[in-house]
Each structure stands twice: as structure tokens, then as C-alpha cells.
């Protein structure tokens, strides 16, 4: 018997939403305790700041420019590498419960396996992609899917539609009549993607994901090895947690984010230091990507709306923490806890008021790029608790899972095993991470590459419809941790810029086989 792996992800969660990371809005005692027992990472970056490419990187251990799912709406190739497949082959029982999103959601033709499998209601070997070895899909033996709403074919939505149809209308309508991300406002402040939801807490997707995970765990044998990816759709918008929980955080008491100057002119001055698409989006001149509501103009965002969004986000984070607590109790009651590695993270962050913006897009700053990451190795391994300050990336997860399972990473994995402490990171020269962005949507093309080191965040905008290849951003994290002062054109940073540019070029030219980039076939 080996070590079991509980991999917990959320969606669109900021680093600073955890108490252990300095967050003061949400109470997260369960995750704080895990961090105290294990390894907490101070600088974890995604490979992409949107869901599909980032999640594909977790599964494949590859950057988007390698695995080929380069933007939302581009499916990860059906035969792409999968760490779940390797674990499956090692004899692990493998499950993914909650949000997958390796394939587009908007799929009325039912062409993608996630949607087809969910439509069938149960995993089945009758699917053409089942080859008797890869698990039902991408190496997972067991799949139950959920996403942010209650419409569509996924398991949670179907469960709600069948079991609790009276509660369906309580959820925010994620997309509008044109299938764009809905800009409609709600709550007390009219903030976009906010709604008071009368759904009982026990029917909300956070508890559903935990309930289904507990159910799956109950079916596992004591001496079996398993890998369970428990994937919560929250705290991604819409911000519509159960109304019964609203009393946890009163939005009127919520302080504004430090990177949200209340004075519009100050916000605009900060935006004007950055590449041109920042201000263009803020003013409503361009929406470069599908993930932000097409009909919403960030300049209209009010301080109270930021407070209300932050409050509801914090409530969703607390519900997740409590749900994780229930699952961990199940492990303890089974007597398994000593042999379970728990890894917690998210796929990307949320701007949540920073620089006057909400949601996400090609904006490579901490709001979207600095992620919570906790690895609590199995207590039986007697791992020393640590805080790692070196930059690490979600691309390292696949190799880490395999190491836990006692296997070396295969050749196709690009990320090294997560360091156990700063000395480990130093000895393996883990001192930088790269985040990529590529989007081509309705005539707007944006291509971004960023490198994060301990000292700097450096971004290059490659030629597209918004940029001519000459723009960039450089932030000196030592004296500008909030990334407000762009040093890209500062002559005193010429050498730094040159070094970091060379490192980005090295990333672009790294050896290894690349998948053919996938085709954009849906908005998301």
C-alpha cells in the first residue's frame, strides 16, 4: 500500500483569501491547519490565468504552449498526457469530482466527453474513447462533474434539476441571452454576477462536491491506493452563495482592497502605466476575452460593489473550508489520514477590485497570478513543515503526484516536483516561473508571456491586434509589491529587463515536443 492523494482545487481564488496567507475576511481554519502541518507556498503561479489551459497544465504537467489547450474554448486533445492515467496504471483508483473543464462547456452538439459522459448520467465503457486502460476518461475511473450554475448536462446541474427543481431559479444566470457572460447586477449594490440565492446550503455545489467525494471515499478499500481530485467550482463568479450564509460577512464592514484606490483618477493613473489594453478594457473600449462580461464596463464599478463582491467571495471561501473539513474528518474516521497527501490550490486568481477591475483576462499581476498552494505530505512521511518563498508553478503538480506515488516523472512532464523548502528549491535552481496567455476571439488577438522571479515580475506583449510587440511591464517586487510602478522603460532597469527577456526567450525555445495547438470551438 502506498500514499493516497487528495488533490483539492478551487476556481479563481486569490492568495490573500486564506487566513494563513494574511486574509482577514474569511475564516479558513481547516486550510490554515493543513498549512501549519505541511508546506505553504508564498509564490505559486499558474501557467495561465484562465481555467482550461491552467487545469490542463495540472493534468499534463505541461505549459499551454506544449499541451495545446491555449485558451478557454480550446479542448485539451483527447489523447493528451494525463497524470491520472499514470496513477491509474500504477493501480490507483482515480476520481475527479466537481469541475473538470478540460473541454468546452458550451457544447450543444454534445461533442465533448465531459458533457457526453455527464449526459449519460453514469460513466460507461460504451464510450468510444474507452480503451480499457485509460479509465473512463483521461485516466479517471470515476467522474462526477459540476460547474458554476445549474443549467446544462453536468451531473450537479442534472441532480438539481431532477431533485430540487424549485431551487434552480435561485441561482444567478451565468450567461445572458446571447450566451455572453452575464453583466446583470444584483445583491444590495447591483454588482455584476451577484445574486441572493435561496438555495439551502446542503444543495449548493460546494457541499455537493464534498458529499460526492465522501461517498466515493466510502467505497474505497482500506488497503487501496487512490487519487481523488476534489474540484470546487467556487469562489469563481457568479457570487451567489446560499443566502442563509450572508450573515457571515457584512459587506458594509469590508475594507477596500489595498490596490483599489477609491479616487477614479488615481485608479486611472495606475492603469495608464500599464500596457494599453488595461485602460481600454477599463473604459469599455475593448473586451479582449470572453471571461469578462461583454456588456459591463469596469469604470462603472463602485467601491460598494467591490465590498459586496469581496464579502460574498469570502463567504464562498468559508463554505469551501468547512466542506474540506468534512472530507478530512472522513479520512480520519477511516484511519487513513496518516497516509494521505493533501494538496490544495486553485487554477488562477481574481482581480476582485484591484486597479478598479473584476474578473480576469490578460492582466498578469498578483490578483490573478499569486495563488494559494498548500502541500500537506502524509504525516507518516514525517515531513518538516515549511514555508517556501521561491516561485513555484502549478505545472509542477503532475510530477509531485507521481513522486508521492513513488514514480519518476515521464519525459512529457515539464514541471519539476514541488520543493519541500527553500533550500530544496535553491539546490534545484527553482527560481522562476512562466505564465502564458494567448487569445484570439472575434478579431481581437492578445499574446502575453510573463516571468516571475523572487525579485521581479516581467511581462512581454507579443504582436497582436492590441500590441505591436514593443510593450511590456516590469515590476520590482522588493519596492513595489503591489505592482503599481511599471519599470519597463526605466533605463536603470535595462539590465534586469534584458536578463528576464532572455529567460522568456529560453522558455519559448525550450526543448521538447509540442502538441498541435487546438482549435477554438466554443467561447468557454
Amino acid at each position: 500500500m502506498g500514499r493516497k492523494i487528495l488533490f483539492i482545487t478551487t476556481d479563481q481564488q486569490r492568495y490573500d483569501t486564506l487566513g494563513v496567507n494574511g486574509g482577514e475576511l474569511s475564516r479558513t481554519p481547516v486550510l490554515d491547519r493543513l498549512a501549519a502541518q505541511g508546506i505553504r507556498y508564498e509564490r505559486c503561479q499558474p501557467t495561465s490565468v484562465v481555467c482550461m489551459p491552467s487545469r490542463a497544465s495540472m493534468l499534463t504537467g505541461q505549459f499551454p504552449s506544449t499541451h495545446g489547450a491555449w485558451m478557454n474554448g480550446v479542448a485539451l486533445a483527447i489523447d493528451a498526457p494525463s497524470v491520472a492515467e499514470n496513477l491509474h496504471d500504477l493501480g490507483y483508483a482515480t476520481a475527479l469530482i466537481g469541475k473538470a473543464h478540460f473541454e468546452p462547456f458550451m457544447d450543444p452538439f454534445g461533442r465533448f466527453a465531459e458533457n457526453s459522459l455527464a449526459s449519460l448520467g453514469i460513466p460507461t465503457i460504451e464510450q468510444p474513447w474507452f480503451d480499457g486502460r485509460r479509465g473512463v476518461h483521461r485516466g479517471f475511473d470515476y467522474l462526477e462533474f459540476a460547474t458554476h450554475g445549474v443549467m446544462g448536462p453536468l451531473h450537479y446541474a442534472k441532480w438539481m434539476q431532477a431533485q430540487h427543481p424549485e431551487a434552480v431559479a435561485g441561482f444567478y444566470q451565468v450567461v445572458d441571452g446571447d450566451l455572453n457572460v452575464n453583466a446583470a447586477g444584483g445583491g444590495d449594490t447591483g454588482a455584476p454576477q451577484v445574486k441572493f440565492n435561496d438555495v439551502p446550503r446542503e444543495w449548493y455545489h460546494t457541499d455537493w462536491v464534498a458529499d460526492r467525494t465522501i461517498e466515493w471515499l466510502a467505497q474505497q478499500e482500506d488497503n487501496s491506493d487512490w487519487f481523488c481530485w476534489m474540484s470546487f467550482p467556487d469562489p469563481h463568479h457568479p457570487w451567489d452563495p446560499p443566502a442563509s450564509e450572508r450573515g457571515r460577512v457584512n459587506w458594509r464592514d469590508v475594507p477596500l482592497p489595498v490596490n483599489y484606490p477609491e479616487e477614479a483618477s488615481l485608479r486611472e493613473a495606475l492603469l495608464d502605466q500599464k500596457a494599453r489594453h488595461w485602460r481600454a478594457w477599463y473604459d469599455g473600449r475593448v473586451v479582449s476575452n470572453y471571461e469578462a462580461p461583454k456588456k459591463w464596463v469596469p469604470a462603472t464599478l463602485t467601491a460598494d460593489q467591490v465590498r459586496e463582491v469581496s464579502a460574498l467571495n469570502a463567504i464562498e471561501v468559508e463554505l469551501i473550508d468547512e466542506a474540506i473539513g468534512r472530507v478530512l474528518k472522513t479520512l480520519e474516521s477511516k484511519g487513513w489520514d496518516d497516509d494521505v497527501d493533501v494538496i490544495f490550490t486553485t487554477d488562477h486568481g481574481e482581480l476582485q477590485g484591484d486597479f478598479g477591475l473584476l474578473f480576469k483576462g490578460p492582466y498578469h499581476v498578483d490578483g490573478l497570478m499569486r495563488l494559494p498552494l498548500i502541500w500537506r505530505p502524509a504525516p507518516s512521511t514525517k515531513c518538516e513543515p515549511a514555508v517556501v518563498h521561491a516561485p513555484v508553478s502549478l505545472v509542477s503538480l503532475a510530477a509531485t503526484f507521481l513522486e508521492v506515488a513513488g514514480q519518476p516523472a515521464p519525459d512529457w512532464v515539464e514541471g519539476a516536483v514541488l520543493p519541500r523548502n527553500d533550500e530544496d528549491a535553491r539546490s534545484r535552481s527553482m527560481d522562476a516561473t512562466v505564465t502564458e496567455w494567448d487569445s484570439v476571439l472575434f478579431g481581437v488577438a492578445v499574446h502575453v508571456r510573463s516571468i516571475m522571479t523572487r525579485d521581479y515580475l516581467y511581462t512581454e506583449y507579443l504582436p497582436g491586434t492590441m500590441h505591436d510587440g514593443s510593450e511590456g511591464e516590469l515590476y520590482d517586487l522588493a519596492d513595489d509589491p503591489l505592482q503599481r510602478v511599471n519599470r519597463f522603460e526605466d533605463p536603470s532597469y535595462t539590465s534586469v529587463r534584458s536578463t528576464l527577456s532572455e529567460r522568456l526567450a529560453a522558455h519559448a525555445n525550450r526543448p521538447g515536443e509540442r502538441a498541435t495547438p487546438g482549435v477554438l470551438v466554443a467561447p468557454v
Partner: protein
Amino acid sequence: MASLRYERRIAAPADVVWGVVTRPETIPEWFPGVVSCTVEGNIRVIQLSSGLEMPEEILVNDALQRRFVYRITAPLYRFHLASIDVIEIGENDSLCVYATTAEPDTLALIVGGGTNSALSEIQRIAESRVSA
């Protein structure tokens, strides 16, 4: 309004490729996700694997130009127009072009994504007919 176009070079005579797409009732054979359809006159109703049903109006089915044009008339679309053109490149070499123009934009992208997969099936069927 959004407009998308996908094309595929197919190793088959243009008449063979045209033979795949010209009969409206055969769409379930080559458009992934379309499980069945009914055709009455120039009205085709397709059933999707998601359970959705979409009515279409066939506007052009021109064997001389090898051009098939139709529009989805479901109220979800404010506008939709699709065309499939089969162009002869050589004796055993064709270009199949599948274009979609629609509003809302997002629906153009979704159905356009489907047409890209459909081209793969059209290619597979046409080339298998040549080799048979």
C-alpha cells in the same frame, strides 16, 4: 455578428466530396453531435445529442457550383447563414470550405466549432469512398 470559416484539403474528386454533403438527410453521418434529422421540402430539423432540436431552412443546393447554403431558424439565433463549398483543385484533390456567419457571436463560435469537426468527417468519408 461573427463570421468564421474553416477549410479542408481532401484527397478525393470534387464530385465525391460533393456527394457526401449534398443530401440533406445524411447530416447525422458527418456532423458530430447531430444524432438524427427530418427533411421535408427545404426544411430540415436536426436533433442534437444534447437533446436540443434545431430547425433549418435549406436555401441553396447547387450541384453545378457544388454549393450548399442553409440557415438555422431557431429563435436562439438572430441571424445564421452557413455555406459549404466544394472546390475542385485537381483530379483527386478538393478543397471543402465551411463558413458560418451568425449573431449572437457566441453562437457563431459554437456552431462554427462544430463545422470544423464536420469537415474532418466529410474528409474521412470522402477519402474512404475513393479508396473503397
